[in-house]
Structures are given as structure tokens and as C-alpha cells.
């Protein structure tokens, strides 16, 4: 594999490719990253395909996590994440840097997940991941099934509600699901969600409201 580009994290005026960023100002760090990524983008567009590996290795975990939260299917999430990067590579010439690369990538991920949901088989809930893992080969670890451990009854009850939250999530429309996950699982602000989805604040809140209503229906007997 070709040598992967690294964002040069600044440490006391020196450039390092190994240490974590120590910039006081987040906005400045973001600006520097955008500038660096613009340079990488230009290299890729000019024909340096290997330079794109920087984007893959930098964002693959975030994108896979986001996709996985939406799809609740480890194997699908892996495939979709790969598709997202391939699509991003093909469309890189159209990316003009109006938003951060990650935001643009998230938008591609939302669209790719939406397409996947429209033509996928019936959704497998997160609670069934353990069964799925048997077919996924050694790369995917056993599913994580947390319990707070206070009592078996409570674990059972929490597990049941969690399963129903998970099942309720997959009944949401792709757009509602994306917005709900960005808001409540990734803790994005409304503005960030707006940037990623291209929707205005009112529309996002409307989707969140409708998503919450659907959840309420699924969790009716909590009353």
C-alpha cells in the first residue's frame, strides 16, 4: 500500500505526524485541516489516486460508525462505508470546499444509506447482531450487549426497551433516522445537521418531532 498522507499536527511550532493536535483554538485547527485537505483534494483531482487514502484512513471510523448506527447491520455498514468513499472519490472534482470534507462525506453517507435502505432486505435489529457475526468472518468481533448489572430483572427490562428503541429507529424514514441519529447518537447541533443534510432548522425540528412521535408509538406501553 502506498504511503498514507497525514495531517501535520502542530506542536510548539514543529510539524509532527504522530502527536495529537495541541492547538488552543478549535476554529484555527479546523481551518488548518481544511486547508490541508484542500491540498490533498487538489492532488487527487490532479491524478494522485493514492493521496485519497488520507481521506479514507482519516474518516473511515466516523463514517462506518454513523452508517452502522443507522443500519444496525455490521456487514451492510462495512459495504456502505466503502461505497461512500468510492462515491466521494468519483465526485471529488465537484467538491468546492464550501463545507468541511467530513460534512460533505456525511451527506454522501446519508444518501448512500437512504439508497441502501430503499432496496435492502428486511432490517436486522441490533439485538440480532450476535447471529449475524457468525457469518461475518473473523474481522467482525462479537456483538456488544451491555447491561448495567444492577439486577437481572432490570437488565432484562432495559434490554427490552433498548431493543424496542433499536427496532423503532429502523421504522423511521431514512431522512428521519439520519437526523435522529445525528442529533441523539452523535450529538450534532441543529446547525451541523443542517449543513450535512441541506435542510433548514424548522425542517430538521419537524423531522425530530415526527421521529419522536414514532418512537412514542413504539414505546406506547411505557405510559
Amino acid at each position, binding site marked *: *500500500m502506498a504511503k498514507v498522507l497525514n495531517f501535520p499536527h502542530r506542536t510548539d511550532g514543529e510539524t509532527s505526524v504522530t502527536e495529537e493536535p495541541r492547538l488552543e483554538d478549535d476554529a484555527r485547527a479546523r481551518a488548518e485541516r481544511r486547508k490541508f485537505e484542500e491540498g490533498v483534494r487538489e492532488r487527487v483531482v490532479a491524478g494522485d*489516486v*493514492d493521496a*485519497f*487514502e488520507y481521506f*479514507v*484512513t482519516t474518516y*473511515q*471510523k466516523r463514517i*462506518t*460508525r454513523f452508517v*452502522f*448506527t443507522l443500519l444496525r447491520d*455490521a456487514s451492510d455498514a*462495512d459495504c456502505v*462505508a*466503502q461505497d461512500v*468513499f*468510492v462515491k466521494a*472519490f*468519483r465526485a471529488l472534482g465537484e467538491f468546492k470546499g464550501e463545507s468541511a470534507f467530513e460534512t460533505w462525506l456525511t451527506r454522501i453517507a446519508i444518501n448512500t444509506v437512504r439508497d441502501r435502505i430503499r432496496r435492502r432486505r428486511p432490517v436486522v435489529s*441490533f439485538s440480532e*447482531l450476535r447471529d449475524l457475526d457468525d457469518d461475518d468472518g473473523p*474481522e*467482525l*468481533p*462479537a*456483538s*456488544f*450487549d*451491555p*447491561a*448495567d448489572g444492577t439486577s437481572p430483572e432490570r437488565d432484562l*427490562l*432495559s*434490554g427490552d*426497551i*433498548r431493543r*424496542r*428503541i*433499536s427496532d423503532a429507529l429502523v421504522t423511521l424514514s431514512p431522512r428521519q433516522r439520519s437526523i*435522529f441519529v445525528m*442529533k*441523539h*447518537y452523535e450529538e450534532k*447541533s*441543529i446547525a451541523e445537521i443542517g449543513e450535512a443534510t441541506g435542510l433548514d432548522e424548522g425542517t430538521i*425540528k419537524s423531522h*425530530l*418531532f415526527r*421521529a*419522536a*412521535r414514532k*418512537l*412514542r408509538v413504539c*414505546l*406506547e406501553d*411505557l*405510559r
Partner: protein
Amino acid sequence: MTATSHLSADEIVARVFPEDGGPAAVPAHLAGCAVCQERVARLREAWLLDRGAVSGYMDGLAEPFWTAQAERTMEEIRSSVAPRAAAPGVRPRLVRHPLLAFGSLAAALVLVATATISHVTSQAPAVRNTVAERPTPSSVDRSDEELLRAIDRVLDDSSLAHLAAEESL
């Protein structure tokens, strides 16, 4: 909502999933109702567990998984680039193999010719029908035809005489 009625499902969901990000106002009833507090806590706990399960699962993916995913992705990207890079080379390749190029051209011409001939042949009966349906020739036409037949006869006779002369030689 009165002080005695429990929170509705909407209110419970709104406590855990506030729409605007900020904490929703705490209903007066919730402050003193252990049942409603328990319901809100249970839903919040379940949601946090679900979120934690997703994070835990992702965090549990070992580095080789990410390396393999990156390699697969880059392989697909490189393979998608390769055909595009080869496209401009189509013309030189044909020049390097002129026989292939001319062979293809000849095959294409043969195909076109075959199609044209079969097309004409299939239309021939229609032409004959059209001729047959024409009105009977007039008397002028008939006399012209007789004249032509007479000329044919004369020509036939002279050619036979010519052949006979050659044979006698």
C-alpha cells in the same frame, strides 16, 4: 396536565429526546412522582445503553479490520480509475493492430450488405404485385411491344447465322 396525572408517552419521550437540544422544562408532576421518574429513567437508560452498544461495538473493531477496509476501498477506487485511464489508448491500440481494425471494418460492411440485400429481397414481391396491378397497356403500348419482339427475333437470327458461319470456318 394536573399534578396527579402521570406523564404521557409523548412527555416521557420528550424528556429523553428533546428536540431543540436544550433540557425540556421539568413538569411539576415529575418532580414528585417516583413512577414517572422511573419511566423516564428507564427510557433514558435504554437509549444510553443502545448508544453505548453501538459505540462499544465500533470500538471493539480491531485495527486489522480498519486496515482491511481501507485497502479494499482503495483497491476499488484504483480499479475504477484504471478503465478510465485506458480509454484514451483505444486509438493507438487499433493502429498497433491494423489487421484487427480492418477485419472489424470488413465484417461490419459485410453485415450491412447482407442486411441491405435481405431487405431488398423481402420487398421484391411487393414490387411485382405493384406491376401486376397496373392497368392494361394501351394499343400504342401493344404495338411498341410487338416492334421490340420483332427486333429481338431479327437479332437472334443474325447471331445464329454468325455462329453458323464461324462453325463452317
